[in-house]
Structures are given as C-alpha cells and as structure tokens.
C-alpha cells in the first residue's frame, strides 16, 4: 500500500475523538472481571468488622465443609509465604508496622483482611466466607489524628509504642525574620477532609500459574503493572522474569490503583499453591473500606504580612492522618503538599512541619492530585484570608505576588524550579471569559437584594510530569518502543500504561505526524509487561510528559535508521537524505524517493542492507526528564446560596489551564471536566466518615456523597500555552489539574458569598447543613 500522507494538516493539536471510545461505548472492552479461564477459582476476603481487636481464633472448618470450597486460609496459612506490602516512600525516622497480607493476631481497621476463601464459583465463595468463624476481642480504638497525639491515647500499633509514623520538615528562606518583620500575621486552621476515590470499576485481579514453565500471569486492575512486576516478586518469591503483569481495561484509578494491594499477592500465591487460576473481584463496599483513601490533613497555617500587603513568609504545622498502614506512597503525599506550598506566588520564606499519624482507619495514599490539592487549597484560601484582613483586592494581591514570565525558570523557597509560566496571562484570560466586571456587578446587585452571591478565584500551579529519577524512588524515566512492521503498519508501545487518559489517541497523533503515516496505520500498545517490557506507568500526570519523551526518542531513532537504509538504496550518504511527510529523498529533490513500505520490506527481508546494518526497523528508548513540569491556570467560580436551605448553586465556572503544548485539546478538556467534577465533590459534598469506634459510616454510594450530573454546571473553558523545556514535546500534563485548581475556587466562592455575614472560613465539604448553620449562627 501507499504511504502517501492523506492528511496534509498535522494530527497534533486537533481535537480528535478517542480511538479508545468505540470499544468502551459498545461494551467490547475487556476488564478483569470479563476474564474467564478454565478451572478458575474465586476468592472472597473475610474482613474485620472491628477497627482494633485481637484475633483470638479463625475457624474455617464450617466453610471448608461447604460444597465447592477449595480452601480457607488465615494469616497463619499465608503470611509466611506472602511477605509484606511494600512502601516506596521513606523518611529518616519512619516507623512502619509489619503489613502482612492477612491479619496475624490483631486487626487495625474495619475491612482489614482476616481470611480468604477460595471456591469453584463466586456464590460458593461468598457463602463460605460467611461461614468462617472469627473470634475477636475488641481493643481501644483511636480514629482522631489529633487525639492520637495526646498522652495516654490508645495506640494504633501498640508494638510501635507511638502513633507518630514520621516527622518531616521543609524550610526555605529566613522564616524567623519574616515573622519578626511582619506587621501582621494571618492565621487559620484548616481541615482537608478524607476522601474515598470511588473508581467506577472497583479493584480486581486474576492470577494464573503455568506449572510447565513456572511462569505466573497476573491480570489486575491497576495503574502500575510495571511497578507491580518490580515489587510483587519480593512478596511471593517468584523471579521477576517469570512474572507477567497485565492491566487490561481499567475503569478508573485516580491514584487508588497506584498501589500494590494484599489481594494481588494473595491471588498470585494461591494460584501457584492450588495450581488453578484464582480470581478476586472487589465489591463496592470492600472498595470503600479497603482501597486507599485520600487527603486527610489538618493544619495550622500562618502568613507573615507587611503593612503594604506583601507576603513575607508562610509556616504551618500539619498533621497527616495516615490510617493504620503504609501503602505504596503514604508518607510521600504530605511532602508533595510541602513542595508546592507557596503556589504561584513569590513567598521568600517557608516552613512546614509535618507529623504523620497512625489511626485505626484505611491507609491514606495518592488520590488525584496527591498532596497538591491540599497545598493549592490552603494557599488559595490563605490568599483570600490575607486579602480580607489587609483590605486588598484578592485578584491584585495574587497578581503582585506572581513571578513575571521573564523570571522563569523560577526558584521557589521550597526548593523547586518552576519551568515556565505566564500566570497573569491565564488570569486575564479567565477574567475575560468570566466577564469579570459584569460578574462583580451581579454580586453587588444580589447582595443589595439580600442574596448570598460569591465569587472565588484560584490561580494555581502544580507539579506534573513525575519526574526526574533522582526525585523518584523507583526511577522517574519512561520507556517506549516504535516498530515499523514489515507491512509498514506502525506499532507504538509505551510503558506509561494509560488507563482512561487517551494516549492510544494522542500518541498515535504524535507518531502519525512525525513518521508521516496515516493515523489509522498506528496501533498503540500498553499495559502488558510482556509487550511493554519496562515502564513506570501512569500517575502524577506523567504519561505524555515523560512517556511522550520516550516516544519522540524512538521515532527519531527509527527515522535515523531508515535514513541510513534509504541512503544505501538511493546510492547516497545518510546526510544527503531528507525525510519529509513519510518520504525519504535526496536533498535537492532530484531522483526517486522511498516510503516506509519500501524501507520496511527491505529492512526485514534483509537482502540488500548497508554494511553493519541491523535488520528490522524498530527502536526503543528510555526518556529521563530533566525536571518536573509545572502546569498552572486560573479557575473562577461564582455561586448563589439559598438562604433558606444552604444549598449551593454554581452559576458560573471558568477554567483557563495551561498545560504547555496541547497534543489533543479534546483529551485535555475531558481530563479537566472530570477533575473539576471531583473538585466539586470535595468542595461541596464528599467526606469519608468513621465514627468514634472506627466504624466506617460512608461505605456505599447511599452514604458517600459523590456529585451527580445535576450538580455539575457548564464550564467555560480556555487555555494559554506556555511550553516546558523539560521534555521534547513541551507538554506539562493535565491529568490532575482540574482536581487541584478547582477546589479552592469553589470554596473561596462559597465563603465570599457568606462574607457579608462575617464568615471568614469554613472547612469542606460545604454542605447545605454547614452553610445553613453559618447563616443562622447555629
């Protein structure tokens, strides 16, 4: 076939529909639960109903006697064979409990796995799990992280002798001088509530062991098949090269699947032990109790301000409620908060003291934004508080603290170097889209009529493109491969493991443009460690920023190799060959040209190759980014509150985001739309609640208030484009920006609406009840 480019206009930058969507919309996608293997057994986990208890006895006799039951296993049966759950974040003074796959003699949270039942059908397994008798002796419980620090508090892990998991400090600039020279100190205590990620598809996995070859395949609903392949061998003792991990279609992760969970190790081990495939599918109630939670920080924040309104310094003491165990990145989350603590502002001095605290709850870990939503919320709330207390306009206060475009790369007091930015341009554009003056006029008019109308702004910056390897425990590079097949079809492989972000589309756009091939000739593969041999997967908005870098390197290498072959076939030297829109010709335009079809055939038939030329046309590459990327933007939200009920109506939402060069604006808009919806959830509705006995009260959608379609307004969206130099595509990443930038804009709007009543601050979620109480002072 011909390789003449059908589209003269490039694919990159166009709002192309996702190639992933037809299979998803038609029900043709394969999720873990769609897998059916011959002889497959079904596992169900027996979980603790107590937040803290001694496990006196686990009796599986009645369960074992039921029809179809292949085995009942307690901690005594499995823990010696399954190692401990790894945590990839370290702290000098970190005290870590031994995190076995099943409880040994104690349980530490409601939902703690105590036993596993394996049976021929899921129904038999559920029935048998109910027949497992566990005797508990309830023990004192601590659920409040502040109380956990008090003398005499019950201990989450009595063997650790303390509830303090670690302390962490960040300091930059002269903080003591800042507060000494301050004319005024603005103080606020803020609580960043615990959230439940609630991916549409709960977790699940299928493990299958091939006894002949001794290889194990684990299909798991994960964001990180490569990290699972790196870490699981240490738990179950299989060689890394005998383990294949596959992430099939994944129905949402948001960080909750950026983890290695006990069930993955249990199913893998049992598949080997029982010689049969073992499937485990998490139920919604288990998902709420035993998949990681997010956020959960409480802090006292202080801003040193001079009389002319200049911010001199920012300090805080933050308590991070970790729950009872460390999952993969648990201790690292508050450190990300610290790194972007100063937001998009020139704040010369900063100090943050973090105490990580154990409580009898599920572990907290990365949830979309992971530490940055906390930082952005607190700095954007503080900007409004400073503006209010110093009588400044919140917009002007922000503006005067922005670094100017020519000041980039901009070093922050927290030790980062922001790559590029024009914060004022995004702010101006957002104000324009919001019709700022008109909006302010509307607020004044509503207030005159006794209405409660507020406008909130967030001029955020965040950290993406994670990240340079020196900052990442397991390396922060990404791997890719580009292969021109013998038929000249193109196979792109990425280690970045997209799971909903749309890189099957955007990577095809990039490759089509750079190789000069029709986009339909490209297939993008990912998520299987036997295909994408190495990778660091998707989290921290890194897939395009870092994975795209590897893609560009591969394309450059393939094109270079093809040039050498073309030169040989055209009787010229490689440097005389020009590559344009999929054609290789001699510079000056004379003579014949060659396309990918000609070159691919020659490269694989290998009868007429230049001396020393390796057959085939493929290249792989590891891309190492030189820095993080720092996307930014301005979100503006306007709300109208119902005085009678406290209900919030978002009457306007404007988002202007700068994620660097845009590969596909439709994908970017999709990421932002979803992210802002999750922000609305956090700002107005969501909170994970444990009662004083450590009982989880928000265990299902009836009790955990996710926003619904009717709660999501129409967004006016815009963009500015400030490319980064951290990667060859100039992209910054956008997977988390909506969740990071939007929450404070909404909270600021609600509190602005209540300002005439003297309200300065309310903690999220800003539920009708909380607002009603604020209005009625009750």
């Amino acid at each position, binding site marked *: 076939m011909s390789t003449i480019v059908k589209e003269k206009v490039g694919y990159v930058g166009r709002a192309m529909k996702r190639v992933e969507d037809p299979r998803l919309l038609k029900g043709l996608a394969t999720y873990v639960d769609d897998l059916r293997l011959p002889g497959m057994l079904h596992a169900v986990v027996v*979980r603790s109903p*107590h937040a803290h208890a001694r496990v006196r006895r686990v009796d599986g006799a009645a369960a074992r006697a039921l029809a179809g039951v292949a085995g009942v296993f307690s901690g005594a049966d499995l823990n010696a064979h399954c190692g401990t759950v790894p945590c990839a974040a370290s702290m000098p003074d970190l005290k870590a409990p031994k995190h076995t796959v099943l409880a040994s003699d104690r349980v530490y949270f*409601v939902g703690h796995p105590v036993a596993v039942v394996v049976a021929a059908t899921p129904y038999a397994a559920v029935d048998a*799990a109910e027949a497992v008798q566990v005797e508990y002796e309830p023990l004192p419980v601590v659920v409040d992280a502040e109380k956990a620090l008090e003398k005499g508090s019950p201990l989450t892990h009595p063997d650790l002798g303390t509830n303090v998991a670690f302390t962490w400090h960040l300091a930059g600039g002269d903080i003591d001088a800042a507060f000494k020279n301050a004319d005024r100190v603005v103080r606020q205590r803020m609580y960043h509530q615990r959230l439940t990620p609630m991916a549409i598809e709960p977790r699940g996995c299928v493990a299958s062991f091939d006894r002949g070859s001794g290889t194990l395949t684990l299909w798991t609903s994960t964001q990180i098949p490569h990290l699972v392949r790196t870490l699981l061998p240490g738990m179950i003792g299989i060689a890394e090269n005998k383990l294949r991990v596959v992430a099939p279609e994944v129905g949402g992760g948001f960080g909750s699947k950026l983890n290695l969970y006990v069930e993955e190790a249990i199913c893998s081990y049992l598949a080997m032990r029982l010689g049969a495939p073992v499937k485990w599918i998490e139920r919604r109630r288990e998902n709420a109790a035993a998949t990681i939670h997010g956020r959960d920080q409480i802090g006292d924040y202080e801003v040193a301000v001079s009389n002319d309104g200049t911010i001199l310094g920012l300090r805080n003491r933050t308590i991070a409620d970790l729950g009872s165990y460390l999952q993969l990145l648990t201790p690292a989350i508050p450190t990300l908060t610290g790194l972007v603590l100063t937001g998009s502002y020139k704040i010369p001095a900063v100090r943050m003291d973090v105490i990580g605290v154990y409580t009898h709850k599920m572990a907290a870990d990365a949830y979309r934004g992971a530490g940055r939503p906390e930082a952005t919320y607190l700095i954007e709330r503080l900007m409004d508080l400073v503006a209010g207390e110093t009588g400044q306009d919140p917009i002007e206060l922000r503006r005067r603290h922005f670094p100017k475009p020519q000041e980039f790369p901009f070093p922050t007091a927290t030790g980062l170097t922001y790559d590029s930015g024009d914060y004022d341009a995004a702010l101006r554009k957002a104000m324009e889209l919001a019709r700022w003056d008109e909006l302010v006029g509307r607020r004044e008019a509503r207030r005159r009529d006794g209405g409660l109308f507020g406008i909130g702004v967030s001029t955020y910056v965040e950290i993406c493109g994670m990240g340079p390897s020196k900052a990442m425990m397991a390396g922060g590079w990404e791997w890719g491969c580009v292969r021109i097949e013998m038929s000249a079809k193109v196979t792109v492989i990425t280690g970045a493991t997209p799971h909903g972000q749309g890189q099957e589309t955007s990577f095809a756009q990039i490759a089509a443009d750079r190789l000069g091939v029709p986009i339909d000739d490209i297939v993008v593969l990912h998520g299987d460690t036997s295909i994408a041999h190495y990778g660091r997967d998707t989290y921290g908005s890194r897939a395009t920023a870092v994975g795209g870098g590897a893609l560009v390197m591969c394309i450059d290498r393939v094109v270079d190799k093809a040039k050498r072959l073309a030169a040989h076939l055209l009787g010229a030297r490689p440097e005389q060959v020009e590559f344009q829109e999929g054609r290789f010709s001699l510079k000056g335009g004379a003579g014949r040209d060659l396309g990918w079809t000609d070159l691919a055939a020659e490269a694989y038939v290998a009868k007429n190759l230049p001396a020393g030329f390796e057959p085939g046309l493929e290249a792989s590459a590891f891309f190492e980014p030189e820095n993080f990327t720092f996307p930014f933007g301005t979100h503006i939200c306007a709300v109208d509150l119902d005085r009678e009920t406290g209900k919030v109506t978002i009457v306007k939402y404007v988002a202007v985001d700068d994620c660097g060069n845009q590969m596909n604006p439709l994908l970017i808009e999709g990421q932002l739309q979803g992210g802002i919806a999750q922000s609305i959830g956090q700002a107005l509705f969501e909170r994970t609640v444990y009662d004083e006995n450590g009982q989880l*009260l*928000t*265990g299902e959608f*009836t009790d955990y208030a996710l926003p619904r379609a009717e709660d999501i307004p129409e967004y006016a969206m815009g963009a500015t484009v400030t490319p980064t130099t951290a990667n060859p595509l100039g992209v910054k990443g956008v997977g988390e920006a909506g969740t990071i930038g939007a929450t404070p804009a909404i909270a600021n709007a609600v509190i602005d609406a209540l300002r005439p009543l003297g309200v300065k601050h309310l903690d999220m979620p800003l539920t009708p009840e909380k607002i009603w109480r604020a209005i009625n002072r009750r």
Partner: protein
Amino acid sequence: MKLTGTYRLAAPPARVFAALVDPDVLQRCIEGAERLVRTADDQYDVHLRLGIGTVKGAYVGTVRLTDQQPPDRFTLHVEGKGAPGFVRGSARIQLTAAGAGTVAICDADGQVGGVVSAVGSRLLDATARMLMDRFFERLGAEVR
C-alpha cells in the same frame, strides 16, 4: 447509639416480668429471633435475621439477662455477629405499677460494626427505635 422509650402495658409488673424472663415469650418479642436456646441460667443462644437499611443478614449470638430484681427491673443483653458485621446492645428495663397496668421504661445502648455500620448507619437509629417499639408492642400482646 443510645435510645430510651416509655411503654404502657395492660398487666401488672409481676406478670410483665414473668413474661420477659420466659424464653418462648422473648423469642416471640425479639424481632428476627428465629431460634432461642437456653444454655445456662438466664442465658440463651440466639439466631437472628435482621435487615438494617439495605443490609439484610443472619446473626448468631447470645441473649443474657442480668441485674434481675423482680418485679422491678432487669437488664437484657443481646450480642450477635454474622456476615454483615456485629450488633451488640443492652437495655435496662424498669417496670413501675400504674393503675392496673405497668409503665416500662427502656434505656438502651447499642453498637454495630462492619458492613452494617458502613451502609446502614443513617437508618440505624430509626431501625433501633422500630425494633424496640415492636418488642414492647408484642410484649403488650403477650401479657394482655
């Protein structure tokens, strides 16, 4: 979770008390008690089938009577566990003669855990109230 209730019964305290310590009567009065087997003085094994909110399930546990001061008062303890979690509660029941009948004041304290707490908590108070009302309604019918 704590709740109290006051109920009027059309029989004197002695008769009410006798009914309350009779396992057959107890089984008929405790909502969802499918089986009540005496295991010791004032102690019974109980099989309960209960729905709390959307969580329906079977619980196995014990019923104990303590602090008996006939015909004035006693304390009833119920404890059960099952797939939906656990339920645990005690009720102090005070009987006072009122005319030809009895006024019963019930002071109950309960705790649930596990799934039943995670998905039924908002309905728990209402369910507990309903269970208590039903208990005394049935008891009233028993002693009439």
